[in-house]
């Protein structure tokens, strides 16, 4: 159309041609639009797969750990240097490093010289000596015996075994020097070095040495924190929801509470950490790093979620139930506790589990109240210093050792495992008990 045509002169045929022409363009636009939508959905899915893939790829190997097979001779001369029957004191204080050294030298009799022997003993983790000590302490009659033990290998040996670090060359040695790499190869060839289930990872607390570090301390810390959070937030949340839904009259005051709860649900979690630091630690003088304070902060954090979910569950109970109960002469409290609450309970529990899952993954507010300390011991009560799983992930991700990358991913897998279990429980609960009225 080079020259402008007056509108009135368009014939129906021309109109049809124009529409047909524009239709192609419009259908193309339609397809493009649809493609963008599909691409966005696929992008999200690809990301989920990629994220889980990398985490599992990096972390799966942390559940297995390298151990070195050593003939251990519990030499009475080392355990009780003064002769006689070794006392418990002797056994606790003996030089197990020397026992390990002797065992290793039996495997590699050709190794001579102070430096080489030191390099050789470094193949075994420093934690192996403590494992041996515990074994001798808890098993009677081992002293003087010889037995085959799988000793925990050092983190560098473990990483080389799993192929995570370079072997290095003479000119450019990796974390292990060339002698150590040669010994490593010999051990592998003689089946003296293998990957076995990583018991340490599931039974120990944190450590500076990656091969001795475990998630058990963090798991227990999370357990204490979450249990206390649940104990506080569930009754309070349900009570608040019952008041707002069943008792409160609609007025300015309840409006304020409602707006307040909705807003609290969207306040950044780190602000709750500031509150905990200033009020619980600064003002009330509670101990730092304790699950107690963590639980208080997480309670305040999860309360809005639980209240909102519980109110929705209460709203789902039809008014006829209430009217029937009141009609039979029940008081308002009886109506709620005998009829409405049991019917709303599954919904409330679902909401609570989801709130707990959120609390389990929460990190930032716990950093504020000092649950980020390096803690080796597994906590035994809610006032012991402790750390929790996500904070353990944060701490390990900061460590420079290559082996900690694997540990971090391993801890994430454990954390995600707990989350999957909790969310699956919530889904099952919802499907099983949800009633449509």
């Amino acid at each position, binding site marked *: 159309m080079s020259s402008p045509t007056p509108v009135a002169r368009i014939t129906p045929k021309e109109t049809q041609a124009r529409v047909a022409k524009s239709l192609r363009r*419009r*259908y193309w*636009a*339609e397809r493009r*639009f*649809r493609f963008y*939508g*599909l691409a*966005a*959905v696929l*992008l*999200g*899915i690809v990301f*989920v797969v990629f*994220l889980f893939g*990398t*985490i599992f790829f990096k972390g799966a190997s942390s559940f297995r750990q390298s151990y070195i097979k050593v003939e251990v001779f519990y030499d009475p001369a080392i355990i009780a240097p003064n002769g006689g029957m070794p006392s418990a004191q002797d056994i606790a204080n003996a030089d197990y490093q020397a026992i390990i050294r002797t065992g290793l030298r039996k495997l590699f009799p050709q190794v001579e010289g102070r430096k080489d022997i030191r390099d050789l003993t470094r193949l075994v983790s420093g934690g192996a000596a403590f494992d041996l000590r515990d074994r001798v302490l808890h098993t009677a009659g081992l002293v003087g015996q010889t037995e085959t033990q799988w000793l925990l290998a050092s983190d560098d040996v473990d990483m080389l075994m799993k192929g995570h670090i370079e072997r290095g060359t003479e000119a450019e040695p990796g974390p292990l020097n060339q002698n150590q790499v040669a010994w490593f190869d010999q051990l592998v060839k003689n089946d003296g070095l293998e990957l076995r289930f990583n018991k340490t990872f599931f039974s120990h607390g944190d450590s500076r040495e990656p091969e001795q570090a475990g998630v058990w301390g963090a798991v227990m810390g999370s357990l204490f924190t979450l249990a206390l959070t649940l104990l506080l937030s569930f009754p309070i949340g349900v*009570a*608040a929801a019952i*008041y707002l839904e069943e008792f*409160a009259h609609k007025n300015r005051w309840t409006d*304020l*509470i409602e*707006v*307040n*709860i*909705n*807003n*609290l649900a*969207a*306040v*950044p979690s*780190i*602000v*709750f950490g*500031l*509150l905990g630091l*200033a009020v619980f630690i*600064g003002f*009330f003088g509670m101990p730092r790093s304790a699950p107690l304070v963590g639980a208080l902060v997480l309670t*305040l954090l999860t*309360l*809005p979620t639980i*209240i909102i979910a519980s109110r929705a569950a209460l709203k789902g109970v039809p008014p006829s139930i209430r009217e029937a109960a009141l009609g039979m002469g029940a*008081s308002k*409290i009886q109506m709620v506790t005998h009829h409405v609450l049991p019917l709303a309970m599954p919904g409330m529990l679902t909401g609570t589990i989801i709130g707990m*899952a959120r609390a389990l*993954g*929460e*990190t*930032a507010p716990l*950093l*504020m109240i000092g649950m980020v300390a390096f803690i080796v011991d597994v906590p035994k009560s809610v006032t012991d210093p402790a750390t929790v799983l*996500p904070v353990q*992930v*944060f701490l390990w*991700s900061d460590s420079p050792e290559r082996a900690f990358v694997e540990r971090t991913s391993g801890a994430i897998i454990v954390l*995600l495992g707990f*989350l999957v279990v909790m*969310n699956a429980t919530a889904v099952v609960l919802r499907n099983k008990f949800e009633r449509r009225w």
Partner: protein
Amino acid sequence: MTPAALLVVLVGLSLVAYVLGKSRALATVGGNRGIRNLHSLPSYYGALTALWCAIPALLVLGAWAAFQDAIIIKLVTSHMPATVQSLPESQLGLVINDVHNVVAGNVSFDNARPEIRAAAQEYLQLRSISRYALTALVLAIGIVGMVLVRTRISPQFRARNAVEQLVEWALIGCSLIAVLTTVGIILSVAFEAARFFGKVPWYEFIFGLEWSPQTAIRADQVGSSGSFGAVPLFAGTALISGIAMLIAVPVGLFSAIYLAEYAHRNFRAWTKPFLEVLAGIPTVVYGFFAALTVGPMLRAWGESIGLPVASESALAAGLVMGIMIVPFVSSLADDMITAVPQSLRDGAYALGATKSETIKQVVVRAALPGIVGGVLLAISRAIGETMIVVMAAGLAANLTANPFEAVTTVTVQIVTLLVGDQEFDSPKTLAAFALGLVLFLVTLGLNILALHIVKKYREQYE
């Protein structure tokens, strides 16, 4: 008795009170046969007796436990030698800490200095007196409460109403905790922030371009006066949140549109939970992913085309944060789109619009207020997100708009200023609370605005 043991005894006592109250009620009407003469069920009489036994005693116990230590310390310090009493507050705190350590058995008695030893002895003595007094008082209150209620029990006594009144008060108390939390946040953060603004003028904080919160350990240290200009932090937060929103809004919106309008029911049923998984992953996992996978990836990519990308670039943190927010945007947008009445779509189809034209020109426009509200909520989330930026963004306060450089954010600085040992009155620590106040106010404003818009929108189609 220790407070914990006392608590157990009190629980036992209220169980006794329950039984006594119930039996008394039955006795007034001559056993089970006369039960219909009672105003309430017998268990209500028991419950009321138990509550009146336990609640006042518990309140006293709580108050006592909260203030006991402070009062004892006051008394102990007032008996210390004058030289100790005249110490400045911070050193006096150390002395008191020593006393606490000796009392707790962390430091042996023999190793302590004589004045501390004396103070610790006095502390222990006072504490044992206080415990005896507390035990006597709590038990007395419990018994008095129990006896008072029990003597008032008669067939006409409205026990159920009294119990229900107490329960209702408890319910009100629980719902007030949410309000108290907000008040607590505002008071604690604002109070510490006010102390900060007493040391650093507010205009320097809001408009200053230099952020280096170092404070001197010694008076003669070089560069001892930290500077607290927060503009680089605000800019960094805005940059990272902006990148995140550039990812989250289109991806979230398009996936919501696709799932709500185009997708087959089965496809929707499978993919929606899959995308919602993203919302359930802890942020620390995203942070790890951003720092160890996305960051190095971007860096390698930048090197391959000759672009200098910092290993802790704003881009890596922003990208991952954007992905984290996608399900948030998409689920809100989904709600809003499904709330648009079908009649609007039908009208558009009747005029000959294609599906995408209907969506673009009718559905999205009708849902726009709701979507905007959702996006505002998402922005508030991005601003307050902590772990991703702590792990993947930098610490250096650069004032830059280049996404390949490292920037720092408000939340990162709060964490770095407060993690580790700190004293409560240095401007460095207090600055974190000032940042927290800004963060709280900004997110609060965004939330209120967004919730208001969303609420207005929902009302429109109801």
